């Protein structure tokens, strides 16, 4: 019986740790590609076509309800593999990761606005950086 308890608690603890770390994301990465006005990332515009290697996409500083945010995404093989916040709202008391707490809040607002059940969102064009805080991004992440 003791072994069973150990196995169960060990597995659950491991899962929680893994998933928590996955929602808290990592470090910035290499060459910038998109029209980011002279931001971070190391210069050279690579023309490597996906899926080989990672590339960084840096957004403009975007105004969010929490203050100015600048986000850098690392994209590999069509997928966002890392999101890093380069500039964060200084007034926020919350955790760094916009994605983590903003989405539930935003979705709640959406639902209360109209119980929408939408498939997609149309709005003024967002850049890659602005995308992160967008409703479309929440939809894409399957929330």
């Amino acid at each position, binding site marked *: 019986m003791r072994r069973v308890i150990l196995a169960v608690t060990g597995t659950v603890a491991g899962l929680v740790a893994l998933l928590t770390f996955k929602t808290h994301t990592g470090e910035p990465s290499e060459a910038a590609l*998109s*029209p980011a006005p002279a931001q971070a990332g190391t210069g050279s*515009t690579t*023309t490597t*076509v*996906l899926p080989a290697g990672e590339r960084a*996409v840096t957004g*403009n*500083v*975007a*105004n*969010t*309800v929490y203050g100015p945010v600048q986000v850098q*995404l690392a*994209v590999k093989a*069509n997928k*966002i593999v890392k999101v890093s916040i380069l500039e964060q709202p200084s007034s926020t008391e919350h955790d760094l990761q916009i994605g983590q707490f903003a989405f539930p*809040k*935003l979705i709640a*607002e*959406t639902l209360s*606005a*109209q*119980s*929408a*059940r*939408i*498939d*997609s*969102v*149309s*709005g*003024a*064009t*967002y*850049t*890659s950086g*602005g*995308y992160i*805080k967008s*409703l*479309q*991004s929440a*939809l*894409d*992440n*399957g929330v």
Partner: protein
Amino acid sequence: MNNSTPVAGISARVRHAEHVMGTVVSFDVPVFARHEGILQAAVRWLHWVDRVFSPYRPDSDVSLLARAEVTVDACAPEVAEVIAACAFLSDSSGGYFTASPGGQFDPSGFVKGWAVERASQLLSAAGSADHLVNGGGDVQCAGGRAPGEGWRVGIVNPFHAGQLALVVAGRDFAVATSGTAERGLHIVDPVSGRPATGLASLTVAGPSLTFADAYATAAFAMGDALAREWTESLEGYEAFAITDDGATWQTSGFSRYIAVD
């Protein structure tokens, strides 16, 4: 190998977000599209468009053309096609749609919607009858998300991040919205040279995203009064607008797109 027919049930679908052309293109496609490389083909198309048309890449056809380092003949044939379409649109919008904002050749306003619509056509040709592609806020749908249903697209509330102003729904349609909701992207009235006034957001819905996108951009640049008149005159395309002070207006046929809950 795959035994599933494209059943458009909610759970047989996959979402994918691709960073390209300076924005994010979101796909909602059936599972088999991702599995069989169909999605990848559409994504490759978008990246090709980026390489050829991006004004931020010094070696793209568009940049070379802008610097007059090549002629149109030496570019990809799609470039000529784009230039011709822009000319037509510029004509029919009285100059409010332009491929050379501020005198510099940059058809990005047209290219995004056009590329997304083409991506949707690629998906359809490869067997995906029901899908949705959203390029940075401009949406092209095919079919519906389930048999008998359409696709539901929310329109962002320009005054309140995270809220919707309206939900539109339909089958085989496109929605494009112009506005100033994101800092740093201003639609400039090409005639007066100053930022357009009067409108916070303008949405155009119709069968083709290429046109919906271009019409929305042009109409927004016209400002409140002119836009209302011009969009009413468009055949097959309807518009919905939110003004600076929070009021809304729409063209007479737009109600058929409004979602009935």
